[in-house]
């Protein structure tokens, strides 16, 4: 069974540009989560999508946004990139937040470098 897959794995962008990161959840999982892991910082919760709707977002500015498609895959968009946005962006999926013993599986991440 395929795990959570993310693309691209690495990318370099210039400050002010926009970026789109993609995520395919584990088959059967309806919830998708996005986290940011910057150097020296822990994993910071960005967004949670379930059944195509944004259910919660972390303490990030509105230029961080995303969506979830009918097939449960998801995109994370970051506009007006800043140097501090350089980080590993992790996508995760699960059966559903309220599922008993909800277990969340992470992908390999997308490394974003902003120069």
């Amino acid at each position, binding site marked *: 069974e395929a795990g959570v897959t*993310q693309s691209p794995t690495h990318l370099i962008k210039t400050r002010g540009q926009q970026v789109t990161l993609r995520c395919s959840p584990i088959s059967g999982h309806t919830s998708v989560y996005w986290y940011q892991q910057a150097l020296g910082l822990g*994993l910071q*919760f960005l967004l949670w999508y379930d059944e195509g709707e944004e*259910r*919660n977002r972390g303490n990030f500015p509105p230029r961080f946004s995303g969506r979830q498609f009918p097939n449960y895959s998801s995109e994370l968009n970051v506009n007006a990139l800043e140097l501090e946005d350089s980080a590993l962006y992790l996508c995760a999926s699960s059966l559903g*937040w309220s599922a008993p013993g909800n*277990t*969340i599986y*992470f992908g390999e*991440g997308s490394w974003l470098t902003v120069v």
Partner: protein
Amino acid sequence: TQLLEQSPQFLSIQEGENLTVYCNSSSVFSSLQWYRQEPGEGPVLLVTVVTGGEVKKLKRLTFQFGDARKDSSLHITAAQPGDTGLYLCAGAKSGNTGKLIFGQGTTLQVKP
């Protein structure tokens, strides 16, 4: 405010030694997960614990969830160089938030 305090932050030991990593909070969690992360890769799930007092074993790794579901520990017996990595605990609080709260992580180095 760091809701999950993980200790120690760094640990360097010799192959064959035992170690314990702690994850403590004043908050109650409905479940807690442990992950291991290699540099440049995503966290890999080791275990999920949901019941207070629960103990789970994964080969040489033993995970325990506190009776009050506020703390957890990871014990590794006879550590091997392949155990080297970043260990993360992450708790889910009750409520429909979709948010895992992560500890700061424990960087483990096992020297041959």
